[in-house]
């Protein structure tokens, strides 16, 4: 009896020890444990005693570090936070410190960058004529530093630095040399699309030049989602801090608003881009649990909302009224659904069998597609009546782009649920589609003004 207990204890310890490895999940431990026990049973049957059988079985299974490394290579996403599989524990604190220094330095540089134009007489937020300059260059103040952060971190080769610099230089030339009129439609479209275009270019640095690799792109998607959460949190905190500062300075009769709006807000917003990225790289375990929670929370809510909307539309017989903002509203809906889908994909264990949540996800997608199809139909009628304008074309293009992505995602989801395709097909479809978004964003930024004559 005592012998049995000691064997169970030892297997328990072995399991604990294995569980500590990030790349080895509990299902894997269970599978390995079954192997270990089968091996022990066989060895016992051959006449070994419990101690010997346990030792031999563990030895045969292989040394746990090597084993964990094999799992890590196979499941890069499980330890993507460690970034390099072979990272040594002793040198990691040094790397962390170096990264922190680099991140803070680059954040300060980004914060300073947005104040540099002031030296040349361009002020923020007054006068409003200069606002246009800041708006169109907004992404160029922070994103190059973000790219540099990753280029340094991933030790990008020199040719990589060149390729990385090309899109940023091109963006700077496009927005500053083309004769945009302030507040023109094409100008505002460029302001919206340029950050997206450049954000996708940062993927090149993030992937250390290996941007064609599916895993790297998926990691970048994951990074983007988590960065967004961090940035929102920092913005909330920053907003609270600014509000309080304003309040207490007012109490002693000083007006802090000018300093806050002119310095703290722009510098903070730029610096937070880098700091957010650095936090994602180093403090993931908090967020890692947040992305799935957010998905689980909002997927059912949005599905319910869309279902009610469809029912209400059928019940009342009201069609969609085509107003100016309708197309943009439906674009946002699709972006949101795609965002939820991407969050769900990136947080999901690609090995897990189809579950109830997958059905829900598919339902959400189907509803969104249905609603969007109705909207598109209404909008197409309107465009054929009034012709194309920059805004309508941009919104329509994006809508079609998202529609294609989501329709095929839904098809792959159905195939996955029917057990006819592995989940990775869906992941690969999403990462393979990323360049399409980049191309479209660049197209709207750089060619729309020319096509629509800077309207």
């Amino acid at each position, binding site marked *: 009896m005592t012998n049995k207990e000691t064997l169970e204890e030892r297997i328990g310890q072995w399991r604990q020890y294995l569980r500590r490895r990030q790349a080895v999940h509990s*299902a*894997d431990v*269970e*599978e*390995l*444990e*079954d*192997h270990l*026990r*089968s*091996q022990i*049973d066989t060895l016992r049957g051959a006449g070994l005693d419990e101690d010997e059988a346990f030792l031999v079985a563990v030895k*045969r*299974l*292989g040394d746990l570090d*090597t*084993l964990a490394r*094999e*799992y890590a*290579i*196979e*499941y890069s996403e499980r330890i993507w936070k460690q970034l390099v599989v072979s990272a040594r524990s002793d040198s990691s604190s040094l790397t962390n410190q170096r990264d922190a220094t680099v991140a803070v330095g680059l954040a300060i540089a980004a914060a300073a960058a947005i104040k540099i134009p002031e030296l040349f007489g361009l002020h923020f937020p007054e006068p409003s004529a200069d606002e246009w300059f800041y708006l169109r260059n907004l992404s160029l103040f922070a994103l190059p530093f973000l790219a540099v952060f990753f280029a340094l971190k991933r030790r990008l080769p020199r040719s990589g630095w060149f390729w990385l610099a090309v899109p940023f230089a091109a963006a700077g030339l496009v927005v500053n040399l083309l004769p945009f009129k302030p507040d023109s439609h094409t100008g505002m479209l460029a302001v919206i699309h340029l950050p997206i275009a450049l954000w996708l270019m940062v993927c090149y640095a993030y992937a250390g030049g290996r941007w064609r690799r599916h895993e790297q792109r998926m990691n970048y998607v994951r990074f983007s989602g988590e960065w967004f959460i961090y940035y929102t949190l920092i913005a909330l905190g920053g907003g609270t801090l600014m509000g309080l500062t304003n309040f207490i300075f007012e109490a002693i009769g000083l007006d802090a608003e000018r300093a806050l709006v002119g310095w703290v807000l722009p510098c903070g917003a730029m610096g937070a881009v880098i700091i957010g990225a650095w936090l994602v790289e180093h403090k993931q375990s908090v967020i890692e649990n947040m992305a799935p929670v957010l998905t689980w929370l909002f997927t059912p809510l949005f599905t319910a909302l869309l279902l009610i909307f469809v029912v209400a539309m059928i019940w009342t017989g009201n069609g969609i009224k085509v107003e100016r903002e309708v197309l943009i509203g439906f674009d946002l809906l699709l972006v949101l659904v795609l965002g939820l889908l991407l969050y769900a994909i990136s947080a999901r264990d*690609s*090995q897990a*069998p189809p579950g109830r949540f997958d059905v829900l996800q598919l339902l959400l997608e189907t509803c969104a597609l249905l609603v969007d199809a109705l909207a598109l139909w209404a909008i197409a009628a309107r465009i054929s009546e009034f012709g194309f304008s920059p805004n309508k074309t941009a919104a329509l293009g994006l809508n079609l782009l998202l529609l294609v992505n989501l329709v095929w995602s839904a098809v792959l989801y159905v195939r996955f649920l029917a*057990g006819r*395709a*592995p989940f*990775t*097909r869906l992941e690969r479809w999403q990462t393979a589609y990323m360049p399409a978004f980049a191309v479209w964003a660049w197209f709207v930024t750089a060619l729309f003004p020319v096509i629509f004559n800077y309207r």
Partner: protein
Amino acid sequence: MNIDKDLVAASATPLVLAILNEGESYGYAIIKRVGELSGGELQWTDGMLYPLLHRVERNGLVEAFWGRSEAGRGRKYYRLTRAGAEHLDRQRRQWQVVDQAMRGIWRIAVDPAAQPI
């Protein structure tokens, strides 16, 4: 005999797929089968089989499902998919070419008068 690491690595996937082609199986039984087939000469570190199985599962060559062992423990079974069978077929043809070439040269190495096939 100590078989070269690269050779073990190269043959591992087709060997596992071929074993699964005989019918669904699980990790420990696969290891045992490898031992039987090679007369105990081909020894893997047992644990290494699992990352390999997971990789072929992820690539859709095999599918996995959880069942129970005789003792009632959870046990993960693997089964060859159609894509896996096709992949195995291609692999077999490639190995046959390699095998044939090797046989030819071994014969000459042993008996220089023999002609290559």
